[in-house]
């Protein structure tokens, strides 16, 4: 692991009205690291992820990617970055959404090519090659010309992953990407994520798939009540259960299904 973490989050706060969702989150992610965020619903996991690419503007603290403050020119609550600067920063962080959010008027291939053409300014041929490469990687080489409405949920989500990684982001954010899927489609999506992890992609993952979190990530972070309540290597974290009641209560709900 390199000396300076790729992603540095310090004392992060975020409120929606009077509801303070993030109270003070500290979290670093090193290049090549796969970090999974678990925790109870409403605990701020998704909000944390959405702050990292500034889909939500945070109120206080700091988020830095490669040493640059995300979203703000200097510090939180100050002047926001201009449209072009902000867009360029967002292009460096890929995100995959719970509800896929594919562009319904574009084919699988075009969904991936849009960012490559309009943001990365790739020539048509190159953009198409990259799109097809990634569709092949997620097992959809035969679906390049399909519209999202012609794909299953699992296939749509795999296109969603391909769209994000094709932009060659520094960090990939996965926001409960299997929550909207039928159970039998979950694994085809998680398999793609496992492959990306073994390729060395830096990832920050929010998931309810505890078993997946345990075997696919380098570190698990337990977020509850707007703070990082516990974190560590998967095995070590599970060992902390004895000292952390919130973590114990949270995990006990999964013990019936965990192996």
């Amino acid at each position: 692991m390199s000396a300076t973490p790729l992603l540095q989050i310090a004392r992060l706060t975020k409120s929606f009205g009077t509801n303070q969702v993030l109270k003070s989150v500290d979290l670093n992610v090193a290049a090549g690291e796969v970090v999974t965020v678990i925790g109870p619903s409403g605990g701020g996991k998704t909000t944390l992820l959405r702050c990292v690419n500034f889909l939500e503007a945070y109120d206080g603290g700091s988020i830095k990617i490669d040493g640059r403050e995300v979203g703000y020119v200097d510090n939180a609550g100050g002047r926001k970055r201009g449209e072009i600067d902000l867009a360029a920063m967002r292009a460096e962080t890929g995100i995959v959404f719970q509800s896929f959010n594919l562009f319904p008027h574009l084919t699988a291939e075009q969904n991936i090519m849009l960012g490559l053409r309009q943001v990365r300014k790739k020539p048509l041929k190159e953009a198409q090659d990259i799109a097809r490469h990634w569709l092949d990687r997620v097992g959809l080489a035969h679906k390049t010309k399909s519209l999202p409405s012609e794909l299953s949920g699992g296939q749509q989500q795999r296109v969603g992953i391909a769209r994000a990684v094709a932009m060659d982001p520094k960090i990939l954010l996965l926001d409960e990407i299997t929550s909207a899927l039928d159970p039998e489609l979950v694994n085809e999506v998680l398999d793609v994520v496992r492959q990306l992890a073994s390729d060395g992609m830096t990832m920050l993952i929010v998931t309810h798939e505890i078993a997946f979190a345990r075997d696919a990530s380098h570190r698990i972070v337990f977020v509850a009540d707007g703070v990082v309540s516990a974190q560590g290597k998967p095995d070590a974290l599970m060992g902390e259960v004895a000292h952390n009641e919130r973590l114990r209560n949270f995990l006990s709900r999964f013990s019936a299904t965990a192996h």
Partner: protein
Amino acid sequence: MQELIDAIIYAIPYLMGGLGMTLLVSLITVAMSLVIGVVLGVGLIYGPWPLRWVIRLLTDCIRGIPILVLIFAVYYGLPPLGLNLSSFWSAVLALTLFKTAQVIEYTRGAVSSIPRGQMEAAKSIGLIFSKRLRYVIFPQAMRRFLPPWLNGVTDAVKGSALVSLLGVVDLMQAINQVIGRTYEPMPLYVLGALIYFAINYSLSSMSKLLERRYAYIKE
């Protein structure tokens, strides 16, 4: 019968001149209201609150006034303010204001029907605002925008007949002028109705083709 045909043949050259004016007024109204209305419609959704408030006020006022009142208000109301427009431009301005208020509403309805996740996905791949609209939001909004807007185009053609009240010689006014000479209203009004119908029927046929073009987009 022969008299009827003679009356029509006599009228045709005058009516064609009027028809040209009707089409010109409609075209300018539709084109200007489209551009201004879409821009303000986008401002109404994504703009800062003072802008949204001003646009909201503007559209609510315009839509609450009968178009006829609006035409006279522009024609008689602007000169005292130091703005002297010809009757042609007064009429076009009033029709455009009226139409713009409608286009703002169509745009707002169509754009805000697109799920929020689409804008977020477009942001996340690094598209700037104008490209998010152009490549992600507008192509999807088109499907909902077109049907009411195309209806509105035929309304604009029909509504343009009101410019005759300011003395602009459009199709309606040309008909009135011919009747003023021949004292035979029936054949001329029937002929005028047929011409308006022919324009609008071909417009709505074209609009059905256009709508089909966007029918493939499903959410």
